[in-house]
């Protein structure tokens, strides 16, 4: 059964060809001999018999030739395999332990690699994804990292840029779609007509936009995203061709997108730019400073990112000279270009790479452990090895035998690890979705399988090589020692000790990492966010702007809504606001001017985040009033313009002086706002981010806001339905979405670091488990090898405690050495982790000390058990066993 396989393999190695050549060579020889014999006058038959005779056994000659080729490798491999399998079957405990250990290591690596491959390495699912780039206009001096492009700017870059095949624009809007049972709030991506050609996306049904459909006056058309089509239209193909009302005009559905990850964000529908009422407004188009759109480009095949960057910089500086009013020098304009694939994974990259690194460490530890097990077994196999050496097995052959066995084990571990990875993948994908939207591409596929195979084989070779590297030994000594089982080769013992030291060092590294991440999470939880998220509901209302289309109507819509909410039983307070804390939105900051402080020419101007809030906002969120007063109903649209600042802002601009009564302007001094109070800082953008300067404006005076916040007397989610209905009664065409409690928002903000720490802790637990088994294994082997010596010591009066102390002490010495190495490595690698930490130094001595002490204690306990067992033996028996 096995034979044809080996024949096939032999052929693959050119064996059949070699055989043919050997036949030809010998046939030539025989023919020559026959010819010579014929010339000497023999008869035909006689001549060939004589030729064969003088050859002395053709088959034997062939066999000897084959030996000379060394084609016996395959046969030897087969022997090694069979012997290896038999050997492992005889030691099922060892085989299972080793394969399981390796499965943990290989499984962790396979799982994390499939994330890394799917998110970071796999090309974008768009045509020539590596040539897609994102353009970004920045004003670094004003602290703006991305401010969008205006219509004029897009035209300029399109016309003047030569590096791109095409530039497309996109912006996201939320519109209300009417024509279904309920008004529906749809996330809308407003794009150039050639947006889908740019990505190379073909529609699932219908068509995508035609060129010209983004020109003024074109019919308003829609393309539905796959997810939205499934969710809201039940995957009904007949929706293509139907018409819905949006923004007071009919919109016809022309196509449905395939199930691809959407880009740059997830949207429900797509429309051409001419259909967006904001984007197609002539005033908006004419205004060079109305920057709202994102711009993406596809590089020409012959241009590189660098040349494109240089070209864009040239155009940018040309525009800056041409329109100095649009690009004031004090904001410091700059154009940035980045690869799209890197852009989409910016947040996931450091976390995933750190995880891959730690998975690698887990595997390394697993390798060291199995190598240690193999070494321990080798001690018992010394006799076998010595005999095989005596029987003529070469050193290479013995090493090969060990490598075959280790590779077999590693492959078994790899197969198990694959199952493990497969089982863990869904949870890991959920984890990754918090960092990137590229999770649809995470699968265990060919590339991942190849990776697992490569890792398994490399693992097998790695841990197989270590024991094979053992010292060259004299045959006779080997046999004698093996019989006596008295001492083992000191070199091998040193190797095992070195392995344990490395394991401890690596464990320390991973544990310290987990400890630091854990402390970061604790610190994050302890951060005072500056507001109280308990029992606060937030929801987004999108007023149907075709009816509520000026600021007066907008203001009264929300004021009526607030009155209605406040009158409901169970509502403690309600407010409307432009944003709420931790809402993951982009910064909305503006330059401002302080009265009496001349703007320094060319220098950066003061920047602050601004928020429009209704008076109840501070009550709902329980934001502290530090001095002065809060907003009240008196601060209406006809009252003097007022503002509140947060403590950070007050400290920065007024330091010791009182900011109350001072005036600031957001429009270069045309109108002034009087500061009436100072409120506490709020962590707006993330618990790990320091508060920024904040300027609060009364909603009545600057009506901007889409979020309604409600503090309830009891469980907020229980009231959600009631609140929703009350608001729908007010206006049935203004949909409500994103209804959440602030506690949910807060824990979503805490989730990524918490989950990262959790994964790290899992890895740390694995390394610790593996290391402790390795350590106890070493101690029990040492103890069993030194049974004789222990017997003598005890016979001479050593107490069991003294013996235990001796054995444990020796183990702890190794652990200490490993810890020292681990601390050094942790300090050296501290930079890598620092990006994921919050409020803890990457070399935090407290964490290091805690981990080190914990490991020492654990090591002492786990070593004491085998040491105790060694001393429990009767000295007499111990002595005899030598």
């Amino acid at each position, binding site marked *: 059964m096995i034979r044809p396989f080996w024949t096939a393999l032999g052929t693959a190695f050119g064996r059949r060809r070699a055989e043919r*050549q050997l036949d*030809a*060579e*010998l046939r*030539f*020889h025989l*023919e*020559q*001999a026959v*010819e010579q014999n014929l010339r000497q006058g023999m008869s035909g038959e006689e001549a060939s018999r004589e030729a064969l005779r*003088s*050859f*002395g*056994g053709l088959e*034997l*000659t062939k066999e*000897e*030739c084959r*030996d*000379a*080729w*060394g084609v016996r490798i395959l046969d030897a491999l087969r022997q090694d395999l069979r012997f290896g399998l038999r050997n492992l079957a005889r030691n099922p405990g060892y085989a299972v332990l080793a394969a399981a250990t390796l499965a943990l290591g290989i499984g962790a690596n396979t799982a994390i690699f499939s994330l890394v491959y799917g998110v970071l390495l796999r090309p974008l699912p768009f045509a020539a994804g590596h040539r897609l780039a994102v353009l970004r206009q920045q004003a670094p001096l004003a602290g703006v990292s991305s401010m969008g492009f205006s219509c004029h700017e897009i035209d300029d870059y399109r016309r003047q840029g030569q590096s791109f095949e095409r530039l497309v624009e996109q912006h996201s809007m939320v519109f209300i779609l009417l024509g279904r049972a309920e008004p529906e709030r749809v996330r809308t991506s407003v794009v150039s007509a050639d947006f889908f050609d740019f990505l190379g996306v073909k529609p699932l049904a219908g068509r995508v936009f035609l060129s010209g459909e983004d020109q003024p006056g074109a019919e308003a058309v829609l393309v539905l995203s796959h997810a939205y089509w499934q969710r809201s239209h039940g995957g009904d193909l007949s929706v293509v061709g139907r018409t819905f009302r949006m923004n007071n005009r009919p919109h016809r559905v022309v196509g449905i997108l395939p199930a691809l990850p959407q880009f740059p964000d997830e949207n429900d529908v797509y429309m051409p730019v001419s259909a967006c009422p904001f984007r197609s407004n002539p005033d908006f188009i004419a205004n060079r400073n109305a920057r709202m759109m994102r711009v993406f480009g596809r590089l020409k095949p012959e241009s590189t990112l660098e040349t494109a960057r240089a070209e864009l910089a040239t155009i940018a500086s040309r525009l800056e000279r041409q329109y100095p009013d649009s690009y004031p020098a004090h904001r410091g304009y700059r154009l940035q270009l980045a690869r799209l694939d890197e852009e989409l994974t910016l947040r996931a990259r450091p976390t995933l790479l750190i995880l891959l690194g730690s998975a690698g460490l887990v595997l390394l530890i697993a390798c060291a452990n199995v190598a240690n097990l193999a070494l321990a077994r080798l001690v018992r196999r010394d006799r076998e090895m010595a005999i095989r050496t005596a029987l003529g097995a070469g050193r290479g052959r013995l090493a090969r035998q060990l490598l075959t066995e280790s590779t077999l084990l590693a492959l078994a571990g790899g197969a198990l690890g694959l199952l493990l990875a497969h089982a863990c993948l869904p949870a890991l994908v959920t984890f990754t979705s918090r960092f990137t939207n590229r999770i649809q591409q995470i699968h265990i596929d060919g590339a991942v399988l190849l990776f697992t195979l490569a890792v398994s084989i490399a693992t097998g070779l790695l841990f197989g090589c270590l024991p094979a590297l053992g010292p060259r030994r004299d045959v006779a000594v080997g046999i004698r020692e093996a019989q006596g089982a008295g001492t083992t080769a000191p070199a091998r013992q040193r190797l095992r000790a070195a392995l344990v030291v490395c394991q401890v060092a690596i464990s320390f590294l991973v544990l310290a990492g987990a400890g630091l991440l854990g402390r970061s999470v604790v610190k994050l939880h302890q951060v005072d966010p500056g507001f109280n998220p308990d029992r606060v509901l937030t929801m987004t209302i999108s007023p149907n702007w075709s009816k509520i289309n000026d600021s007066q109507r907008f203001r009264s819509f929300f004021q009526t809504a607030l009155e209605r909410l406040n009158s409901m039983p169970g509502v403690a307070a309600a407010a409307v606001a432009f944003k709420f804390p931790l809402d993951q939105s982009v910064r909305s900051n503006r330059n401002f001017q302080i009265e009496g402080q001349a703007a320094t020419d060319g220098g950066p101007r003061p920047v602050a985040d601004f928020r429009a809030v209704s008076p109840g906002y501070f009550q709902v969120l329980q934001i502290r009033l530090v001095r002065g007063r809060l907003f009240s109903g008196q601060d209406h649209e006809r009252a003097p313009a007022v503002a509140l600042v947060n403590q950070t802002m007050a400290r920065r601009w007024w330091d010791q002086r009182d900011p109350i009564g001072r005036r600031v302007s957001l429009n270069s001094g045309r109108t002034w706002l009087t500061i009436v109070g100072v409120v506490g800082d709020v962590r707006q953008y993330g618990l790990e981010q320091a508060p920024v300067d904040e300027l609060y404006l009364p909603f009545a005076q600057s009506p901007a806001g889409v979020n309604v916040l409600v503090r309830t007397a009891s469980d907020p989610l229980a009231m959600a339905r009631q609140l929703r209905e009350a608001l729908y009664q007010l206006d049935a065409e203004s949909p409500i979405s994103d209804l959440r409690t602030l506690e949910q928002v807060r824990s979503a903000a805490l989730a990524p670091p918490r989950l990262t720490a959790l994964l790290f802790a899992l890895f740390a637990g694995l390394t610790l488990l593996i290391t402790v088994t390795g350590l106890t294994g070493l101690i029990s082997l040492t103890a069993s090898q030194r049974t004789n010596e222990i017997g003598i010591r005890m016979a001479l009066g050593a107490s069991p405690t003294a013996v235990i102390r001796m054995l444990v002490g020796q183990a702890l010495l190794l652990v200490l050495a490993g810890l020292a190495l681990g601390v050094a490595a942790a300090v050296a690698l501290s930079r890598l982790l620092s990006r994921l930490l919050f409020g803890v130094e990457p070399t935090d001595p407290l964490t290091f000390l805690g981990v080190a002490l914990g490991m020492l204690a654990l090591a002492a306990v786990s070593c004491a058990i085998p040491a105790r067992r060694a001393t429990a033996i009767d000295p007499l028996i111990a002595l005899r066993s030598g």
Partner: protein
Amino acid sequence: MGKDKTDLLQGTLDLLILKTLLAAPQHGWGISQRIQQVSRDVLSVNQGSLYPALHRLERQGWMASEWGNSENNRQAKFYRLTPAGRRRLAEETENWERVSLAINRILQTV
């Protein structure tokens, strides 16, 4: 074959093969014929050991082989000496001379 032919001493076959190839590339049959000729039919090459020796020497890198046409225009495997083979030949020759000198001395003194 006749009784007046001497079997080769262990280990000398390699030396003779290498030496034969020093002049020109040759196939197995040619090598055996040439050794017989030059030794005036005193040494006969046991063909059963010639070919394993050729394959072994090739594998050790002292000879290389290629297929070519023989004198009577048949496909034959020709062996030629590699530079390593030349060095090996020099060593083996020196070794042989030392041994044969020693044996001669013993034969003369006894």
